[in-house]
């Protein structure tokens, strides 16, 4: 009896010991999984939309408003809070929300959530993401203050059913045959996780991506997500290293700087990716089909440089210092921009203040990104430096922003397409409304007419028979 007890004790102790080892091993495995899920969540930039309204708020607590042409879509709380977040989601429900755009309560999500891209996520990655969101994220027990309220008929979530039928692709991620492992990784990162096409692919009349124009650029709020295909009108003259540098730091000397939503993508997502993944992205981007898009026409003869002595004529009287109603682009440039970008727009030698003479924001197909940068400024953390350009929307009115934009494009890119205050106003308010929003009432009226005609036809048929 004694012996057996001792044996039992030893056995029990042993069992406990091995148990704890296996438990430790399991913990290590879970930790690994959580780590991987976190990296995936960063690569997918979930935090860009599901962030708190205030900076420094709880991660993934939501409430951030995405301005869509249909109205403000408020991102949801995706922390594991049981009451306000996704704490009660099963992995299946999580997967359906991420890959199919259907929430656990059966409601359809709006495609502001890029489920059309995420549908290609592998099961392994969904599992890692689920584990991370359930165990690696702190629950935040409050709902976002605002609720998504779109105008009729977009507030009826059921209409997304039909849209999904037409535009949601339920096929899993397709590897490219014969392509290297790295190239396929790039395809996965660009098409699925990074959902680059969400912004960089133009949308059709029904707001779905036009796959034939993949990554050829499209309007996005007041901004314009440029053509990133390897065409001359895109980023054909960027090397693979250029793309990697841009994604990592948000800037590329004499070419481009990330501002607006792309600045956010760099700050919250791309700069945290490892070099292998960034190179895979660049490699894939460099071999997607090149698509030619319109570029701004340059004047045959370069613009005559403005003599600053014609503009700056002294400080005038004390009272004239307070008046700043001028709409002279040259005067505004020299007052607001020249101290950093230089009188001749060359920027600083270290490229910290970028050149405006070789700059895609200035020479772009339209003045949208230039105008939005002037109005909203830039605030971006990259892997090397933090960049801040002041927003001038509080100092300049629309006409003044238009004037200085016209001046900059004309002087530094030889583009003579004057920007109007009206355009500035439209862009600052989120850009032109797309077809489906502008004509929604006509579309609905047409639908009613069709239904009436069918009823009428049926009645006629019944009368005859």
């Amino acid at each position, binding site marked *: 009896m004694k012996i057996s007890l001792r044996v039992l004790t030893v056995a029990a102790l042993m069992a406990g010991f091995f148990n704890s080892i296996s438990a430790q091993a399991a913990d290590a495995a879970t930790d690994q999984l959580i780590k991987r899920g976190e990296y995936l969540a960063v690569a997918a930039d979930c935090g860009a939309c599901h962030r708190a309204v205030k900076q420094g708020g709880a991660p993934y607590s939501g409430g951030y408003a995405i301005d869509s042409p249909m109205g403000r879509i408020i991102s949801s709380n995706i922390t594991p809070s049981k009451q306000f977040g996704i704490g009660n989601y099963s992995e299946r429900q999580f997967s359906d929300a991420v890959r199919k755009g259907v929430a656990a309560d059966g409601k359809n999500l709006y495609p502001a959530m890029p489920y059309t891209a995420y549908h290609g996520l592998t099961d392994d990655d969904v599992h890692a993401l689920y584990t991370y969101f359930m165990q690696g994220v702190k629950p935040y027990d409050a709902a976002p203050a605002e609720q998504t309220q779109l105008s009729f008929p977009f507030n009826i979530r059921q209409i997304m059913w039909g849209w999904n039928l037409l535009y949601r692709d339920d096929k899993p991620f397709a590897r490219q045959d014969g392509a290297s492992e790295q190239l396929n990784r790039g395809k996965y990162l660009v098409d699925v996780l990074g959902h680059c096409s969400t912004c960089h692919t133009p949308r059709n009349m029904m707001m779905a991506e036009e796959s034939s124009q993949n990554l050829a650029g499209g309007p996005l709020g007041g901004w314009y997500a440029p053509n990133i295909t390897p065409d001359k009108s895109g980023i054909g003259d960027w090397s693979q290293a250029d793309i990697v540098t841009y994604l990592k730091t948000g800037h590329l000397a004499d070419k481009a700087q990330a501002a607006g939503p792309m600045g956010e993508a760099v700050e919250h997502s791309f700069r945290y990716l490892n070099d292998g993944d960034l190179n895979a992205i660049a490699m894939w981007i460099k071999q997607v089909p090149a698509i030619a898009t319109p570029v701004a026409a340059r004047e045959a003869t370069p613009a005559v440089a403005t*003599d600053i*002595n014609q503009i700056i*004529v002294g400080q005038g009287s004390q009272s004239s210092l307070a008046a700043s109603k001028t709409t002279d682009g040259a005067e505004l440039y020299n007052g607001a921009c020249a*101290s950093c970008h*230089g*009188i001749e727009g060359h920027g*600083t030698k*270290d490229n*910290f*203040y970028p050149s405006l003479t070789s700059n895609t924001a200035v020479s772009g197909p339209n003045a949208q990104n230039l105008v939005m940068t002037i109005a909203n400024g830039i605030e971006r953390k990259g892997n090397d430096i933090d960049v801040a350009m002041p927003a001038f929307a509080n100092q300049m009115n629309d006409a003044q922003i238009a004037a200085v934009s016209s001046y900059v494009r004309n002087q530094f890119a030889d583009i003579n397409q004057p920007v109007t205050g009206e355009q500035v106003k439209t862009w600052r308010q989120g850009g032109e409304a797309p077809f489906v929003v502008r004509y929604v009432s006509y579309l609905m009226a047409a639908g009613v007419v069709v239904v009436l005609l069918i009823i009428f036809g049926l009645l006629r048929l019944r009368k005859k028979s």
Partner: protein
Amino acid sequence: MLSRRQLLKSGAYLTGFAALNPVLSWAVPPSQSSDTSAFYQLSLMLTGRKQLSQVITQRALHCLSEEDSQFPTQMQQLSRAITAAGITQTDELNGHQIMLDAATGATARKIVSAWYLGFTGTPVSLRAVDNTRFVTYTDAMMYTPTLDATVIPTFSRGHTNYWTQPPATIKND
């Protein structure tokens, strides 16, 4: 409604005003008036340049004349003295009687000062208003000697807080 007669009349007034008002005519290239041409020639000689900006020439002369109505006369006097002495280079003025003479020396210094400092008059510190007048900021000649290495003050040289790091080339400078 504006009648044709009124339009023509006001047009004529405006043209006359523009021609007579020196502020508006700054941008106009110098006429062959003796003052402007004398000032331009003097400026070329005193600064040792082959060419100077017409806008700044006009403005410097205007500011100097505003400050002292006697300036055109003094300038003509200086011009005559230089011609009489047969001076063609600035260096020849070093220790010359023209510079030692109170009237001509001061006039020459005023002209050089306007070009180099970019303003006329004498600033009074801690005072909002004094007799200084703006000629040019970016083209003030005092910046020229270092322009290959530094930018004009107030225009950025590098990234924010760049001055906290000594330049990499400090050993060779």
